[in-house]
């Protein structure tokens, strides 16, 4: 049986479509401007009020608050506080600790805590929370880069409410890096960090709302122990993963500080005097070599690679000149940095070819594994030409980041691999434990008794012996050439002029206790 259609007529459908479009246009023209609203009404001078808008290219990871993660840089140090913080000169400054004292053997540390620090829940911070936090940092699943350092603490005692005593079997030069990196968490709500349901610290801002992958909002902690601080009413952190959109957010005035803008783009932004750069540490870009497989089981072949790399060209072409050319794995500001060894392997293609001939590996095929990130790919282009010039036959094996990370953890990166480690700011003693290229179980599979002894000498060094120990280790590592640093690149957060008083501490975390908005 034939049925007649029910519902809207053809004419009604056409009219409806036009009508909805008309209403949309009317809404656009008849309302307040979002551009004007986003421009803000910042007042001049350090006055209270206003909301600071930040943007990062990675989402917050509250579950890994004990680790240094890019997604946590913009909020971690606002909500939480560490025992001590390393300042721009490399000197530890107290935060939740009032003072510390080492015994003569440097295996026992007594830490006195502030008695006026309170968690956002209102509960006073105690020595038990410090003990709990340091114990959590030692657990591998919490992903602290300094888990190995935390594991060196053999005993943590809470002596009363405001004194903690740490005992170690052997002295370590990494303790203040651990204090700097490890936020003191609330033992009662620690489980709530897993999904961000309860994020309770002692910092100047309180965790308010997290929309995973989208945004985070914090509000002023009215009970913060420092009078009249913070100045700001709140902070928002937007997640913007697209590099162009991140710049648009800054240029369009949506945010006052952005983390994750590439070095070259950051440099271009500063040509506009509305923006400036805040040093946020840096990244080591080493070319690692597997010493257990041909052709790099021969030391001469590894040294040939070290001579073949044109580091100056990488610095200029990949980083626009804003990087440090060095063969060393230590932060350039490191106490006792052996400057005389920093350019041992200056670009010398003739020497590289000679070593390749000597090792008998001319024409050897060298797969280089790298992540499909812009900088490693740009570095590869130069390294590929360099190695070809030296007599190798390099080929790229480009993996997506997840696959690359999995292979790195498994130690299956192949004969050669380009890595990146954002560890500028850690001491040499800490880097030896934390940097995957150098630590025990490194992807180069390099391990010798001499290496272990020299590492121990650096990690247990005193002010008097540090330079000698570091020089000895550097000399040995350069000779073995199992991991060749190409350059150490700077890393920046880009800040709008409208933001003042903000501080970026070692390893990239933002501190906004004294920050305010100004015109």
């Amino acid at each position: 049986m034939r049925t007649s259609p029910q519902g809207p007529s053809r004419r009604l459908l056409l009219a409806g479509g036009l009508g909805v479009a008309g209403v949309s246009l009317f809404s656009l023209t008849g309302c307040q401007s979002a551009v004007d609203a986003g421009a803000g009404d910042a007042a001049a001078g350090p006055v209270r009020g206003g909301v600071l808008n930040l943007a990062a290219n990675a989402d917050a990871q509250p579950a890994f608050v004990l680790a240094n993660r890019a997604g946590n840089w913009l909020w971690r140090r606002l909500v939480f506080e560490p025992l001590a913080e390393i300042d721009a000169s490399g000197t530890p400054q107290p935060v939740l600790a009032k003072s510390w004292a080492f015994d003569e053997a440097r295996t026992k540390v007594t830490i006195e805590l502030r008695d006026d620090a309170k968690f956002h829940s209102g509960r006073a911070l105690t020595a038990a929370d410090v003990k709990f936090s340091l114990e959590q940092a030692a657990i591998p699943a919490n992903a602290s880069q300094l888990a190995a350092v935390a594991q060196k603490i053999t005993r943590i005692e809470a002596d009363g409410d405001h004194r903690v005593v740490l005992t170690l079997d052997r002295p370590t030069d990494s303790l203040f890096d651990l204090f700097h990196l490890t936020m003191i968490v609330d033992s009662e709500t620690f489980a709530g960090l897993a999904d961000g349901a309860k994020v309770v610290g002692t910092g100047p801002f309180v965790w308010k709302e997290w929309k995973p992958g989208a945004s985070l909002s914090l509000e002023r902690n009215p009970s913060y122990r420092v009078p009249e601080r913070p100045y700001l009413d709140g902070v928002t952190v937007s997640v913007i993963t697209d590099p162009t959109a991140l710049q648009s957010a800054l240029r369009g005035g949506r945010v006052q500080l952005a983390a994750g803008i590439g070095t070259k783009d950051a440099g271009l932004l500063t040509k506009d005097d509305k923006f400036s750069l805040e040093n946020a540490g840096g990244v080591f870009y080493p070319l690692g070599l597997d010493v257990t497989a041909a052709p790099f089981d021969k030391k001469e072949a590894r040294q040939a690679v070290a001579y073949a790399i044109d580091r100056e060209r990488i610095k200029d072409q990949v980083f626009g000149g804003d990087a440090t050319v060095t063969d060393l794995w230590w932060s350039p500001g490191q106490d006792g940095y052996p400057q005389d060894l920093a350019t041992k392997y200056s670009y010398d293609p003739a020497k590289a070819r000679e070593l390749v001939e000597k090792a008998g590996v001319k024409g050897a095929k060298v797969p280089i594994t790298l992540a499909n990130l812009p900088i490693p790919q740009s570095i590869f282009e130069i390294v590929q030409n360099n190695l070809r010039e030296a007599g190798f036959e390099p080929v790229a094996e480009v993996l997506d980041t997840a696959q690359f990370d999995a292979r790195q953890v498994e130690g299956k990166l192949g004969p050669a691999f380009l890595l990146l480690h954002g560890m500028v700011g850690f001491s040499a003693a800490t880097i030896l434990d934390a940097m995957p290229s150098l630590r025990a179980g490194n992807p180069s599979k390099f391990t010798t008794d001499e290496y272990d002894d020299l590492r121990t000498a650096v990690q247990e060094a005193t002010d008097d012996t540090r330079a000698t120990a570091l020089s000895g280790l550097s000399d040995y590592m350069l000779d073995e050439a199992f991991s060749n640093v190409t350059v150490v690149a700077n890393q920046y957060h880009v800040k709008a002029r409208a933001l003042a008083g903000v501080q970026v501490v070692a390893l990239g975390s933002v501190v906004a206790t004294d920050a305010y908005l100004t015109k």
Partner: protein
Amino acid sequence: MTGHLLRRLPSLALVLLVSSVIAFALPRLAPGDPAAAIAGADASPRAVAEVRAELGLDRSLPAQYADWITGLGSGDFGTSFVNGRPAAELIASRLGSTVELAIVAAILMTVLGVGLGVLGGTPRGKVSRAVLDLTGSVLLAAPPFLTGLLLVLLLGIAFPVLPVSGEVSLLDDPGIGIQYLILPAVALALPQAAAIGRLVETAMRQARQEDYVDLAVAKGVPPGRVTWRHVLPNSLGTAVVAIGLRVGELLAGAIVVEAVFARNGLGALAVESVKNRDYLVIQALILGSVLVAALIQILTELLLTRLDPRVRLEAR
């Protein structure tokens, strides 16, 4: 209509079942390890193993699939590996953004597409015809990301008249929300509108050859009335089918446009989930997409019957 819908249910269920197997297998076929992505590149193998066990990824694949399907039955889509939040909650929190963008883009696509089609399908002089053809070709060739970037540079930075970064929900503040939507929706809609315009134009030209048009002209009906009352309504069937299909493409294009305009919709969630190998969120997104595509297909069939009395659901 109800009978038709009931008859479609078994095939819909079968599509969803097959899709669930594909959605489960697809992310696992990609190399990489969610535990390594979560623990970080600098994690030790021991740390990664602990994370893997914590996420239940050390169990057999059939056991993981069975758990997921059982959960789906009770409305539990699983929990994100990355942030510990339920996948359904994550998707729901992003859905509004993408739906708003897709609706505004679909409206623009329909209005502009039909408008361009009517202009092209109506007798014109040589110059206007050439301008229309050129406009259509340029819009068809310009991908949304390029249009988006040009709009950002022109209307967001050089002459800042509209916001180019972020979003405000239309439900929270319609006046501000629509301003955040206009540029991404235009970038998304333009190429699709041009394609629909071409289809409508062709259909209208064909319709003009029909006898009923000659009769109307012979009776002295004005040209505008011939177009709007006779030619256009009889040419829209093709456009409706195309619009139905293009809505799916709008959602795909939203991934790029959301990135350019820093909107946090489902596209951004999908990209991040794939990057982090967040299996359960990817699975929920794939299954949800299949369901939406199937529902749009059914809706298109229903709408077609309203526009063309010759089409009957029973015959399909």
